[in-house]
Protein backbone atom coordinates (compact mmCIF):
# COMPACT_ATOMS: atom_id res chain seq x y z
CA UNK A 1 0.00 0.00 0.00
CA UNK A 2 1.67 3.20 -1.17
CA UNK A 3 1.55 6.67 0.25
CA UNK A 4 -1.59 8.81 0.11
CA UNK A 5 -3.89 5.94 -0.73
CA UNK A 6 -6.19 6.29 2.25
CA UNK A 7 -9.18 4.91 0.44
CA UNK A 8 -12.83 5.57 1.11
CA UNK A 9 -13.51 2.02 2.41
CA UNK A 10 -10.73 2.40 4.94
CA UNK A 11 -12.07 5.75 6.06
CA UNK A 12 -15.56 4.28 6.45
CA UNK A 13 -14.17 1.33 8.39
CA UNK A 14 -12.29 3.68 10.72
CA UNK A 15 -15.36 5.83 11.36
CA UNK A 16 -17.51 2.75 11.97
CA UNK A 17 -14.97 1.38 14.45
CA UNK A 18 -14.85 4.72 16.26
CA UNK A 19 -18.65 4.82 16.42
CA UNK A 20 -18.75 1.33 17.93
CA UNK A 21 -16.11 2.28 20.51
CA UNK A 22 -17.96 5.48 21.45
CA UNK A 23 -21.19 3.52 21.85
CA UNK A 24 -19.55 0.69 23.80
CA UNK A 25 -20.36 1.88 27.35
CA UNK A 26 -24.07 2.15 26.53
CA UNK A 27 -24.07 -1.22 24.80
CA UNK A 28 -22.42 -2.80 27.83
CA UNK A 29 -24.93 -1.06 30.10
CA UNK A 30 -27.76 -2.41 27.97
CA UNK A 31 -26.59 -5.99 28.47
CA UNK A 32 -25.78 -5.25 32.13
CA UNK A 33 -22.04 -5.90 31.81
CA UNK A 34 -20.72 -2.45 32.78
CA UNK A 35 -17.81 -4.18 34.45
CA UNK A 36 -16.25 -4.56 31.02
CA UNK A 37 -15.90 -0.77 30.56
CA UNK A 38 -12.87 -0.88 32.79
CA UNK A 39 -11.40 -3.79 30.79
CA UNK A 40 -12.06 -1.85 27.59
CA UNK A 41 -10.13 1.15 29.00
CA UNK A 42 -7.28 -1.19 29.83
CA UNK A 43 -7.24 -2.58 26.31
CA UNK A 44 -7.22 0.87 24.77
CA UNK A 45 -4.34 1.92 27.04
CA UNK A 46 -2.31 -1.11 25.97
CA UNK A 47 -3.32 -0.31 22.39
CA UNK A 48 -1.73 3.11 22.89
CA UNK A 49 1.43 1.59 24.35
CA UNK A 50 1.67 -0.93 21.51
CA UNK A 51 1.09 1.81 18.95
CA UNK A 52 3.97 3.81 20.42
CA UNK A 53 6.23 0.76 20.07
CA UNK A 54 4.95 0.20 16.53
CA UNK A 55 6.11 3.70 15.66
CA UNK A 56 9.63 2.75 16.77
CA UNK A 57 9.80 -0.80 15.39
CA UNK A 58 7.33 -0.79 12.52
CA UNK A 59 7.97 2.66 11.09
CA UNK A 60 11.45 3.43 12.35
CA UNK A 61 12.82 -0.10 11.94
CA UNK A 62 14.50 0.07 15.36
CA UNK A 63 13.84 -3.20 17.19
CA UNK A 64 13.77 -1.82 20.72
CA UNK A 65 13.49 -4.46 23.44
CA UNK A 66 13.19 -1.99 26.28
CA UNK A 67 9.95 -0.20 25.65
CA UNK A 68 8.54 -1.18 29.04
CA UNK A 69 10.96 1.32 30.60
CA UNK A 70 9.09 4.32 29.20
CA UNK A 71 5.71 2.74 29.84
CA UNK A 72 6.57 2.02 33.46
CA UNK A 73 8.33 5.32 34.11
CA UNK A 74 5.18 7.15 32.96
CA UNK A 75 3.15 5.19 35.47
CA UNK A 76 5.65 5.79 38.29
CA UNK A 77 5.79 9.55 37.54
CA UNK A 78 2.06 9.91 38.08
CA UNK A 79 2.14 7.80 41.26
CA UNK A 80 5.16 9.67 42.69
CA UNK A 81 3.62 13.06 41.94
CA UNK A 82 0.34 11.96 43.53
CA UNK A 83 2.33 10.91 46.60
CA UNK A 84 3.65 14.48 46.70
CA UNK A 85 0.13 15.88 46.46
CA UNK A 86 0.06 16.73 42.75
CA UNK A 87 -3.00 14.96 41.37
CA UNK A 88 -3.96 17.28 38.53
CA UNK A 89 -3.73 15.48 35.21
CA UNK A 90 -2.83 18.81 33.62
CA UNK A 91 0.51 18.65 35.47
CA UNK A 92 1.09 14.98 36.14
CA UNK A 93 0.47 13.61 32.65
CA UNK A 94 2.70 16.10 30.79
CA UNK A 95 5.43 15.44 33.38
CA UNK A 96 5.08 11.69 32.78
CA UNK A 97 5.38 12.27 29.03
CA UNK A 98 8.36 14.58 29.44
CA UNK A 99 10.25 12.25 31.79
CA UNK A 100 9.66 9.28 29.48
CA UNK A 101 10.81 11.38 26.51
CA UNK A 102 13.98 12.46 28.33
CA UNK A 103 14.72 8.86 29.26
CA UNK A 104 14.20 7.82 25.63
CA UNK A 105 16.47 10.66 24.49
CA UNK A 106 19.25 9.55 26.81
CA UNK A 107 18.90 5.85 25.95
CA UNK A 108 18.45 6.62 22.26
CA UNK A 109 21.60 8.73 21.95
CA UNK A 110 23.71 5.90 23.35
CA UNK A 111 21.88 2.92 21.82
CA UNK A 112 21.50 4.20 18.27
CA UNK A 113 25.24 3.93 17.86
CA UNK A 114 24.83 0.17 17.65
CA UNK A 115 23.11 -1.99 15.02
CA UNK A 116 21.00 -5.12 14.79
CA UNK A 117 21.27 -7.56 17.66
CA UNK A 118 23.44 -5.21 19.65
CA UNK A 119 20.73 -2.57 19.48
CA UNK A 120 18.15 -5.06 20.74
CA UNK A 121 20.42 -6.01 23.61
CA UNK A 122 21.53 -2.53 24.65
CA UNK A 123 17.95 -1.24 24.79
CA UNK A 124 17.14 -4.29 26.90
CA UNK A 125 20.09 -3.53 29.18
CA UNK A 126 18.97 0.04 29.76
CA UNK A 127 15.43 -1.09 30.51
CA UNK A 128 16.82 -3.61 33.01
CA UNK A 129 18.78 -0.82 34.71
CA UNK A 130 15.58 1.18 35.13
CA UNK A 131 13.77 -1.92 36.39
CA UNK A 132 16.37 -2.77 39.04
CA UNK A 133 16.78 0.86 40.12
CA UNK A 134 13.06 1.22 40.71
CA UNK A 135 12.71 -2.18 42.41
CA UNK A 136 15.55 -1.56 44.83
CA UNK A 137 14.48 1.94 45.87
CA UNK A 138 12.40 1.40 49.00
CA UNK A 139 11.00 4.94 48.85
CA UNK A 140 9.11 3.96 45.70
CA UNK A 141 7.69 0.81 47.15
CA UNK A 142 10.36 -1.61 45.96
CA UNK A 143 8.90 -4.95 44.87
CA UNK A 144 5.40 -3.99 45.99
CA UNK A 145 5.09 -1.00 43.70
CA UNK A 146 3.54 2.32 44.47
CA UNK A 147 -0.21 2.60 44.79
CA UNK A 148 -2.10 5.60 43.54
CA UNK A 149 -4.45 6.94 46.19
CA UNK A 150 -6.93 8.43 43.78
CA UNK A 151 -7.15 9.05 40.09
CA UNK A 152 -5.77 12.19 38.53
CA UNK A 153 -8.26 15.04 38.41
CA UNK A 154 -8.95 16.53 35.04
CA UNK A 155 -10.81 19.85 35.22
CA UNK A 156 -14.51 19.38 34.72
CA UNK A 157 -14.21 15.64 33.98
CA UNK A 158 -14.60 13.24 36.86
CA UNK A 159 -12.06 10.54 36.04
CA UNK A 160 -13.17 8.45 39.01
CA UNK A 161 -16.15 7.51 36.91
CA UNK A 162 -15.09 4.52 34.78
CA UNK A 163 -17.10 5.62 31.77
CA UNK A 164 -15.65 9.14 31.75
CA UNK A 165 -12.18 7.69 32.10
CA UNK A 166 -12.90 5.37 29.18
CA UNK A 167 -13.86 8.33 27.00
CA UNK A 168 -10.73 10.26 27.92
CA UNK A 169 -8.60 7.24 27.01
CA UNK A 170 -10.52 6.72 23.78
CA UNK A 171 -10.14 10.37 22.80
CA UNK A 172 -6.39 10.31 23.45
CA UNK A 173 -5.95 7.07 21.51
CA UNK A 174 -8.03 8.34 18.58
CA UNK A 175 -5.99 11.53 18.53
CA UNK A 176 -2.69 9.63 18.58
CA UNK A 177 -3.83 7.28 15.79
CA UNK A 178 -4.93 10.17 13.61
CA UNK A 179 -1.67 11.95 14.25
CA UNK A 180 0.27 8.74 13.48
CA UNK A 181 -1.63 8.36 10.22
CA UNK A 182 -0.77 11.95 9.27
CA UNK A 183 2.85 11.52 10.33
CA UNK A 184 3.19 8.27 8.38
CA UNK A 185 2.20 10.16 5.24
CA UNK A 186 4.22 13.26 6.04
CA UNK A 187 7.73 14.10 4.94
CA UNK A 188 9.10 12.92 8.29
CA UNK A 189 7.19 9.65 7.98
CA UNK A 190 8.46 9.01 4.47
CA UNK A 191 12.04 9.68 5.47
CA UNK A 192 11.88 7.46 8.55
CA UNK A 193 10.28 4.60 6.59
CA UNK A 194 12.90 4.96 3.86
CA UNK A 195 15.59 4.74 6.52
CA UNK A 196 13.97 1.50 7.67
CA UNK A 197 14.18 0.13 4.14
CA UNK A 198 17.68 1.30 3.32
CA UNK A 199 19.66 3.27 5.83
CA UNK A 200 22.86 3.49 3.79
CA UNK A 201 21.07 4.96 0.81
CA UNK A 202 19.33 7.62 2.91
CA UNK A 203 22.65 8.48 4.51
CA UNK A 204 24.19 8.84 1.05
CA UNK A 205 21.31 11.06 -0.04
CA UNK A 206 22.33 13.44 2.71
CA UNK A 207 19.61 12.86 5.28
CA UNK A 208 20.67 13.18 8.92
CA UNK A 209 19.74 9.54 9.59
CA UNK A 210 20.76 9.54 13.25
CA UNK A 211 18.63 12.58 14.11
CA UNK A 212 15.59 11.21 12.30
CA UNK A 213 15.85 7.89 14.11
CA UNK A 214 16.41 9.62 17.44
CA UNK A 215 13.34 11.83 17.02
CA UNK A 216 11.22 8.80 16.13
CA UNK A 217 12.60 6.89 19.13
CA UNK A 218 11.85 9.78 21.51
CA UNK A 219 8.30 10.26 20.24
CA UNK A 220 7.72 6.53 20.76
CA UNK A 221 9.05 6.81 24.33
CA UNK A 222 6.92 9.87 25.08
CA UNK A 223 3.73 8.16 23.89
CA UNK A 224 4.57 5.10 25.98
CA UNK A 225 4.93 7.45 28.95
CA UNK A 226 1.43 8.76 28.30
CA UNK A 227 0.12 5.19 28.15
CA UNK A 228 1.82 4.46 31.47
CA UNK A 229 0.26 7.57 33.04
CA UNK A 230 -3.15 6.36 31.91
CA UNK A 231 -2.57 2.78 33.04
CA UNK A 232 -1.66 3.73 36.60
CA UNK A 233 -4.93 5.64 36.73
CA UNK A 234 -6.80 2.59 35.51
CA UNK A 235 -5.21 0.03 37.84
CA UNK A 236 -4.36 2.33 40.75
CA UNK A 237 -0.91 0.76 41.11
CA UNK A 238 2.48 1.53 39.59
CA UNK A 239 3.92 -1.98 39.71
CA UNK A 240 7.50 -3.00 38.88
CA UNK A 241 5.94 -5.56 36.52
CA UNK A 242 5.25 -2.69 34.14
CA UNK A 243 9.01 -2.24 33.80
CA UNK A 244 9.86 -5.92 33.47
CA UNK A 245 11.35 -7.14 30.21
CA UNK A 246 8.47 -9.58 29.77
CA UNK A 247 6.31 -6.46 29.44
CA UNK A 248 8.51 -5.23 26.58
CA UNK A 249 8.09 -8.68 25.06
CA UNK A 250 4.32 -8.55 25.43
CA UNK A 251 4.14 -5.17 23.68
CA UNK A 252 6.22 -6.64 20.85
CA UNK A 253 3.88 -9.61 20.68
CA UNK A 254 0.95 -7.23 20.32
CA UNK A 255 2.35 -5.37 17.36
CA UNK A 256 3.46 -8.54 15.62
CA UNK A 257 0.02 -10.08 16.02
CA UNK A 258 -1.63 -6.86 14.89
CA UNK A 259 0.77 -5.89 12.14
CA UNK A 260 4.22 -4.34 12.28
CA UNK A 261 4.31 -1.00 10.50
CA UNK A 262 0.55 -0.72 10.10
CA UNK A 263 -1.15 2.28 11.73
CA UNK A 264 -3.83 0.11 13.31
CA UNK A 265 -1.43 -2.78 14.06
CA UNK A 266 -0.91 -1.90 17.71
CA UNK A 267 -4.62 -1.53 18.38
CA UNK A 268 -5.59 -4.75 16.63
CA UNK A 269 -2.82 -6.66 18.38
CA UNK A 270 -3.51 -5.31 21.86
CA UNK A 271 -7.27 -5.93 21.63
CA UNK A 272 -6.80 -9.42 20.16
CA UNK A 273 -4.12 -10.48 22.62
CA UNK A 274 -6.00 -9.24 25.66
CA UNK A 275 -9.28 -10.74 24.46
CA UNK A 276 -7.49 -14.05 23.93
CA UNK A 277 -6.11 -13.81 27.46
CA UNK A 278 -9.57 -13.13 28.89
CA UNK A 279 -11.09 -15.96 26.87
CA UNK A 280 -8.34 -18.51 27.58
CA UNK A 281 -8.38 -17.74 31.29
CA UNK A 282 -12.03 -18.78 31.29
CA UNK A 283 -11.21 -22.06 29.58
CA UNK A 284 -8.11 -23.22 31.46
CA UNK A 285 -5.60 -22.02 34.05
CA UNK A 286 -2.91 -23.02 31.57
CA UNK A 287 -4.02 -20.44 29.02
CA UNK A 288 -0.46 -19.35 28.31
CA UNK A 289 0.08 -22.49 26.23
CA UNK A 290 -2.74 -21.42 23.95
CA UNK A 291 -1.27 -17.94 23.77
CA UNK A 292 2.16 -19.31 22.92
CA UNK A 293 0.79 -21.53 20.17
CA UNK A 294 -1.23 -18.68 18.63
CA UNK A 295 1.86 -16.52 18.69
CA UNK A 296 3.99 -19.24 17.06
CA UNK A 297 1.37 -19.66 14.35
CA UNK A 298 1.32 -15.92 13.65
CA UNK A 299 5.11 -15.73 13.44
CA UNK A 300 5.36 -18.77 11.17
CA UNK A 301 2.40 -18.28 8.88
CA UNK A 302 1.28 -14.65 9.08
CA UNK A 303 4.48 -12.61 9.28
CA UNK A 304 2.65 -9.33 8.68
CA UNK A 305 0.10 -10.00 11.39
CA UNK A 306 -3.65 -9.65 11.19
CA UNK A 307 -3.32 -6.31 9.43
CA UNK A 308 -1.26 -8.08 6.77
CA UNK A 309 -3.89 -10.80 6.36
CA UNK A 310 -6.68 -8.33 5.73
CA UNK A 311 -4.55 -6.09 3.56
CA UNK A 312 -4.09 -3.07 5.81
CA UNK A 313 -0.38 -3.52 6.26
CA UNK A 314 2.53 -2.37 4.26
CA UNK A 315 3.63 -4.45 1.31
CA UNK A 316 5.87 -7.43 1.80
CA UNK A 317 9.48 -6.57 1.48
Amino acid at each position, binding site marked *: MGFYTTSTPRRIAAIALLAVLVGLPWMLQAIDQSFYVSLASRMLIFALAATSLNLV*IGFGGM*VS*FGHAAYFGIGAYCVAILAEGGIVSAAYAWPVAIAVAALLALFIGI*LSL*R*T*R*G*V*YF*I*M*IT*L*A*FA*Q*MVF*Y*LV*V*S*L*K*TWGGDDGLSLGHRSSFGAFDLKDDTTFYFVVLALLAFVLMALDRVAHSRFGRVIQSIRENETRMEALGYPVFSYKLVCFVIGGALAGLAGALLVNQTGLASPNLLH*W*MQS*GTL*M*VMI*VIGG*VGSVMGGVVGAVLLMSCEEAFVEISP*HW*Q*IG*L*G*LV*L*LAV*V*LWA*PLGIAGLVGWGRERE
Partner: protein
Amino acid sequence: MTQLILEQALNGLQFGLMLFLLAAGLTLVFGIMDMINLAHGSLYMAGAYLTAAATQASGSFMVGIATAMLATAVLGALVEVTLLRRLYARNHLAQVLATFALILIANEVVRMIWGAQPVLLNTPEELAGPVRIGGFLYPAYRLLIIAVGALVAGLLYLLVSRTRVGMWVRAGASNREMTEALGINVRLLFTAVFAAGAALCALAGAMLGPLLAVQVGMGESILILAFVVIVIGGIGSIRGALVGSLLVGLVDTLGRAALPSLLRTFLSSEIASNLGPALASVLIYVLMASILVWRPEGLFPARS
Protein backbone atom coordinates in the same frame (compact mmCIF):
# COMPACT_ATOMS: atom_id res chain seq x y z
CA MET B 1 38.10 -7.96 55.19
CA THR B 2 40.47 -9.75 52.77
CA GLN B 3 38.77 -13.02 53.75
CA LEU B 4 35.41 -11.59 52.91
CA ILE B 5 36.64 -10.34 49.56
CA LEU B 6 38.31 -13.69 48.83
CA GLU B 7 35.13 -15.56 49.68
CA GLN B 8 33.02 -13.26 47.53
CA ALA B 9 35.54 -13.59 44.71
CA LEU B 10 35.14 -17.38 44.90
CA ASN B 11 31.37 -16.95 44.79
CA GLY B 12 31.77 -14.67 41.78
CA LEU B 13 33.99 -17.21 40.06
CA GLN B 14 31.44 -19.93 40.76
CA PHE B 15 28.58 -17.87 39.37
CA GLY B 16 30.63 -16.76 36.37
CA LEU B 17 31.54 -20.34 35.44
CA MET B 18 27.88 -21.40 35.59
CA LEU B 19 26.96 -18.43 33.42
CA PHE B 20 29.60 -19.60 30.99
CA LEU B 21 27.86 -22.98 30.61
CA LEU B 22 24.75 -21.13 29.46
CA ALA B 23 26.52 -18.48 27.45
CA ALA B 24 28.70 -20.95 25.51
CA GLY B 25 25.72 -22.57 23.79
CA LEU B 26 23.94 -19.28 23.34
CA THR B 27 26.86 -17.51 21.72
CA LEU B 28 27.47 -20.35 19.23
CA VAL B 29 23.80 -20.50 18.27
CA PHE B 30 23.88 -16.77 17.84
CA GLY B 31 27.18 -16.73 16.00
CA ILE B 32 26.59 -19.58 13.57
CA MET B 33 22.95 -19.13 12.68
CA ASP B 34 22.50 -15.45 13.57
CA MET B 35 19.58 -16.56 15.68
CA ILE B 36 18.31 -14.99 18.90
CA ASN B 37 17.10 -17.80 21.10
CA LEU B 38 15.23 -16.50 24.14
CA ALA B 39 14.17 -20.06 24.94
CA HIS B 40 17.72 -20.94 25.99
CA GLY B 41 16.71 -20.17 29.56
CA SER B 42 13.87 -22.66 29.27
CA LEU B 43 16.39 -25.43 28.56
CA TYR B 44 18.17 -24.43 31.77
CA MET B 45 14.87 -24.65 33.64
CA ALA B 46 14.10 -28.02 32.00
CA GLY B 47 17.53 -29.27 33.09
CA ALA B 48 16.95 -28.27 36.71
CA TYR B 49 13.48 -29.86 36.86
CA LEU B 50 14.61 -33.04 35.14
CA THR B 51 17.55 -33.31 37.54
CA ALA B 52 15.22 -32.95 40.50
CA ALA B 53 12.88 -35.60 39.12
CA ALA B 54 15.63 -38.04 38.13
CA THR B 55 17.46 -37.56 41.43
CA GLN B 56 14.31 -38.33 43.33
CA ALA B 57 13.60 -41.39 41.21
CA SER B 58 17.12 -42.82 41.34
CA GLY B 59 18.31 -41.52 44.70
CA SER B 60 21.60 -40.36 43.21
CA PHE B 61 22.48 -36.80 42.27
CA MET B 62 25.03 -38.00 39.70
CA VAL B 63 22.51 -40.20 37.91
CA GLY B 64 20.06 -37.29 38.06
CA ILE B 65 22.46 -34.89 36.37
CA ALA B 66 23.47 -37.38 33.68
CA THR B 67 19.86 -38.24 32.86
CA ALA B 68 18.85 -34.59 32.78
CA MET B 69 21.73 -33.64 30.49
CA LEU B 70 20.90 -36.41 28.05
CA ALA B 71 17.17 -35.70 28.09
CA THR B 72 17.66 -31.95 27.69
CA ALA B 73 20.04 -32.52 24.77
CA VAL B 74 17.41 -34.64 23.03
CA LEU B 75 14.76 -32.04 23.81
CA GLY B 76 16.97 -29.27 22.41
CA ALA B 77 17.69 -31.22 19.23
CA LEU B 78 13.97 -31.86 18.76
CA VAL B 79 13.07 -28.19 19.15
CA GLU B 80 15.87 -27.23 16.77
CA VAL B 81 14.85 -29.67 14.05
CA THR B 82 11.11 -29.05 14.25
CA LEU B 83 10.90 -25.33 14.89
CA LEU B 84 14.02 -23.22 15.11
CA ARG B 85 15.25 -24.28 11.66
CA ARG B 86 12.35 -22.46 10.09
CA LEU B 87 13.44 -19.23 11.76
CA TYR B 88 17.08 -18.91 10.69
CA ALA B 89 16.24 -17.05 7.51
CA ARG B 90 13.78 -14.73 9.27
CA ASN B 91 14.54 -11.37 10.87
CA HIS B 92 15.42 -10.91 14.52
CA LEU B 93 11.98 -9.68 15.46
CA ALA B 94 10.41 -12.94 14.29
CA GLN B 95 13.02 -14.96 16.18
CA VAL B 96 12.51 -12.99 19.38
CA LEU B 97 8.78 -13.55 19.20
CA ALA B 98 8.81 -17.22 18.28
CA THR B 99 11.21 -18.04 21.08
CA PHE B 100 9.24 -15.77 23.45
CA ALA B 101 6.25 -17.97 22.59
CA LEU B 102 8.39 -21.01 23.43
CA ILE B 103 9.10 -19.53 26.88
CA LEU B 104 5.38 -19.14 27.54
CA ILE B 105 4.72 -22.71 26.43
CA ALA B 106 7.67 -24.18 28.36
CA ASN B 107 6.74 -22.36 31.59
CA GLU B 108 3.17 -23.53 31.34
CA VAL B 109 4.12 -27.14 30.57
CA VAL B 110 6.41 -27.19 33.61
CA ARG B 111 3.61 -25.71 35.71
CA MET B 112 1.25 -28.44 34.47
CA ILE B 113 3.67 -31.24 35.31
CA TRP B 114 5.28 -30.02 38.54
CA GLY B 115 2.87 -27.35 39.74
CA ALA B 116 3.52 -23.70 40.57
CA GLN B 117 5.42 -24.36 43.80
CA PRO B 118 9.24 -24.55 43.70
CA VAL B 119 10.61 -28.08 43.57
CA LEU B 120 13.11 -29.20 46.16
CA LEU B 121 16.58 -30.19 44.95
CA ASN B 122 18.92 -30.87 47.86
CA THR B 123 22.66 -30.60 47.98
CA PRO B 124 24.07 -34.15 48.02
CA GLU B 125 24.74 -35.03 51.67
CA GLU B 126 28.45 -35.77 51.36
CA LEU B 127 28.95 -32.25 49.97
CA ALA B 128 26.65 -30.38 52.36
CA GLY B 129 29.38 -29.39 54.83
CA PRO B 130 32.08 -26.76 54.55
CA VAL B 131 35.77 -27.32 53.82
CA ARG B 132 38.68 -25.30 55.13
CA ILE B 133 40.72 -23.49 52.49
CA GLY B 134 43.49 -21.19 53.68
CA GLY B 135 42.09 -19.44 56.71
CA PHE B 136 38.36 -19.75 56.19
CA LEU B 137 35.53 -22.21 55.69
CA TYR B 138 33.89 -22.50 52.29
CA PRO B 139 30.92 -24.72 51.30
CA ALA B 140 32.16 -27.92 49.66
CA TYR B 141 29.32 -27.89 47.16
CA ARG B 142 30.25 -24.45 45.84
CA LEU B 143 33.82 -25.62 45.50
CA LEU B 144 32.58 -28.57 43.45
CA ILE B 145 30.67 -26.19 41.17
CA ILE B 146 33.86 -24.22 40.59
CA ALA B 147 35.75 -27.42 39.79
CA VAL B 148 33.10 -28.74 37.42
CA GLY B 149 32.70 -25.35 35.76
CA ALA B 150 36.44 -24.93 35.26
CA LEU B 151 36.76 -28.49 33.93
CA VAL B 152 33.92 -28.10 31.44
CA ALA B 153 35.12 -24.67 30.37
CA GLY B 154 38.61 -26.06 29.79
CA LEU B 155 37.32 -29.07 27.84
CA LEU B 156 35.05 -26.88 25.76
CA TYR B 157 37.88 -24.51 25.00
CA LEU B 158 40.10 -27.40 23.88
CA LEU B 159 37.25 -28.87 21.83
CA VAL B 160 36.56 -25.63 20.03
CA SER B 161 40.14 -24.46 19.56
CA ARG B 162 42.04 -27.74 19.03
CA THR B 163 39.83 -30.30 17.28
CA ARG B 164 38.48 -30.66 13.76
CA VAL B 165 34.86 -30.36 14.90
CA GLY B 166 35.81 -27.23 16.80
CA MET B 167 37.36 -25.84 13.64
CA TRP B 168 34.10 -26.45 11.76
CA VAL B 169 32.19 -24.67 14.51
CA ARG B 170 34.51 -21.67 14.45
CA ALA B 171 34.41 -21.60 10.64
CA GLY B 172 30.61 -21.74 10.76
CA ALA B 173 30.48 -18.87 13.22
CA SER B 174 32.72 -16.59 11.19
CA ASN B 175 31.30 -17.36 7.73
CA ARG B 176 28.48 -19.83 7.30
CA GLU B 177 28.14 -19.72 3.50
CA MET B 178 31.85 -20.24 2.91
CA THR B 179 31.89 -23.17 5.33
CA GLU B 180 28.96 -24.75 3.52
CA ALA B 181 30.70 -24.21 0.20
CA LEU B 182 33.68 -26.14 1.55
CA GLY B 183 31.49 -29.18 2.04
CA ILE B 184 30.68 -29.03 5.75
CA ASN B 185 27.13 -29.98 6.63
CA VAL B 186 26.45 -26.87 8.71
CA ARG B 187 22.86 -27.88 9.35
CA LEU B 188 23.81 -31.12 11.00
CA LEU B 189 26.73 -29.49 12.76
CA PHE B 190 24.36 -26.91 14.09
CA THR B 191 21.87 -29.43 15.42
CA ALA B 192 24.79 -31.04 17.27
CA VAL B 193 25.94 -27.68 18.63
CA PHE B 194 22.42 -26.92 19.77
CA ALA B 195 22.07 -30.27 21.53
CA ALA B 196 25.45 -29.81 23.22
CA GLY B 197 24.43 -26.30 24.29
CA ALA B 198 21.22 -27.71 25.74
CA ALA B 199 23.19 -30.32 27.71
CA LEU B 200 25.41 -27.57 29.15
CA CYS B 201 22.28 -25.61 30.10
CA ALA B 202 21.00 -28.68 31.90
CA LEU B 203 24.32 -29.04 33.73
CA ALA B 204 24.16 -25.42 34.86
CA GLY B 205 20.53 -25.84 35.93
CA ALA B 206 21.37 -28.99 37.86
CA MET B 207 24.40 -27.51 39.61
CA LEU B 208 22.68 -24.23 40.53
CA GLY B 209 19.41 -25.96 41.42
CA PRO B 210 20.29 -26.66 45.06
CA LEU B 211 21.61 -23.08 45.55
CA LEU B 212 18.85 -21.14 43.82
CA ALA B 213 15.24 -22.24 43.75
CA VAL B 214 14.04 -24.70 41.11
CA GLN B 215 10.94 -22.84 39.96
CA VAL B 216 9.05 -21.58 36.94
CA GLY B 217 10.65 -18.41 35.64
CA MET B 218 14.17 -19.32 36.83
CA GLY B 219 15.25 -19.39 33.19
CA GLU B 220 14.27 -15.83 32.40
CA SER B 221 16.33 -14.08 35.03
CA ILE B 222 19.52 -15.93 34.15
CA LEU B 223 18.84 -15.73 30.41
CA ILE B 224 19.17 -11.96 30.43
CA LEU B 225 22.50 -12.29 32.24
CA ALA B 226 23.68 -14.82 29.65
CA PHE B 227 22.78 -12.35 26.92
CA VAL B 228 24.70 -9.62 28.71
CA VAL B 229 27.67 -11.99 28.81
CA ILE B 230 27.69 -12.81 25.12
CA VAL B 231 27.11 -9.23 24.06
CA ILE B 232 30.04 -8.12 26.23
CA GLY B 233 32.22 -10.96 24.93
CA GLY B 234 31.30 -10.59 21.29
CA ILE B 235 28.70 -12.79 19.64
CA GLY B 236 29.99 -16.15 18.39
CA SER B 237 33.20 -16.16 20.40
CA ILE B 238 33.82 -18.84 23.03
CA ARG B 239 36.76 -16.90 24.40
CA GLY B 240 34.54 -13.82 24.64
CA ALA B 241 31.87 -15.83 26.44
CA LEU B 242 34.41 -17.04 29.00
CA VAL B 243 35.86 -13.58 29.65
CA GLY B 244 32.38 -12.06 29.71
CA SER B 245 31.03 -14.68 32.13
CA LEU B 246 33.84 -14.24 34.62
CA LEU B 247 33.60 -10.45 34.33
CA VAL B 248 29.83 -10.46 34.91
CA GLY B 249 30.05 -13.04 37.71
CA LEU B 250 32.76 -11.18 39.59
CA VAL B 251 31.41 -7.66 39.05
CA ASP B 252 27.92 -8.69 40.09
CA THR B 253 28.94 -10.65 43.19
CA LEU B 254 31.64 -8.28 44.40
CA GLY B 255 29.46 -5.27 43.65
CA ARG B 256 26.65 -6.62 45.78
CA ALA B 257 29.03 -7.42 48.62
CA ALA B 258 31.19 -4.31 48.57
CA LEU B 259 29.15 -1.41 47.23
CA PRO B 260 26.88 -0.77 50.23
CA SER B 261 29.80 -0.62 52.67
CA LEU B 262 31.87 1.36 50.19
CA LEU B 263 29.10 3.93 49.89
CA ARG B 264 28.75 4.08 53.65
CA THR B 265 32.24 5.53 53.91
CA PHE B 266 31.21 8.78 52.24
CA LEU B 267 27.40 8.84 52.44
CA SER B 268 25.01 8.68 55.36
CA SER B 269 24.18 5.07 56.20
CA GLU B 270 20.51 5.55 55.42
CA ILE B 271 21.15 6.70 51.86
CA ALA B 272 23.88 4.11 51.41
CA SER B 273 21.69 1.19 52.45
CA ASN B 274 19.03 2.40 50.05
CA LEU B 275 21.31 3.21 47.13
CA GLY B 276 23.87 0.42 47.53
CA PRO B 277 21.74 -2.55 46.43
CA ALA B 278 20.20 -0.44 43.65
CA LEU B 279 23.59 0.46 42.23
CA ALA B 280 24.92 -3.07 42.68
CA SER B 281 22.10 -4.61 40.68
CA VAL B 282 22.53 -2.24 37.76
CA LEU B 283 26.32 -2.50 37.77
CA ILE B 284 26.56 -5.23 35.11
CA TYR B 285 24.19 -3.36 32.82
CA VAL B 286 26.30 -0.25 33.21
CA LEU B 287 29.30 -2.44 32.38
CA MET B 288 27.59 -3.78 29.27
CA ALA B 289 26.38 -0.40 28.06
CA SER B 290 29.79 1.17 28.49
CA ILE B 291 31.53 -1.70 26.70
CA LEU B 292 29.05 -1.44 23.82
CA VAL B 293 29.48 2.31 23.54
CA TRP B 294 33.25 1.80 23.53
CA ARG B 295 33.32 -1.32 21.29
CA PRO B 296 29.93 -1.76 19.56
CA GLU B 297 30.75 -5.38 18.59
CA GLY B 298 31.86 -6.64 22.01
CA LEU B 299 35.34 -7.49 23.27
CA PHE B 300 36.17 -10.38 20.92
CA PRO B 301 34.01 -10.11 17.79
CA ALA B 302 33.92 -13.44 15.89
CA ARG B 303 33.31 -11.81 12.53
CA SER B 304 36.00 -9.20 12.29
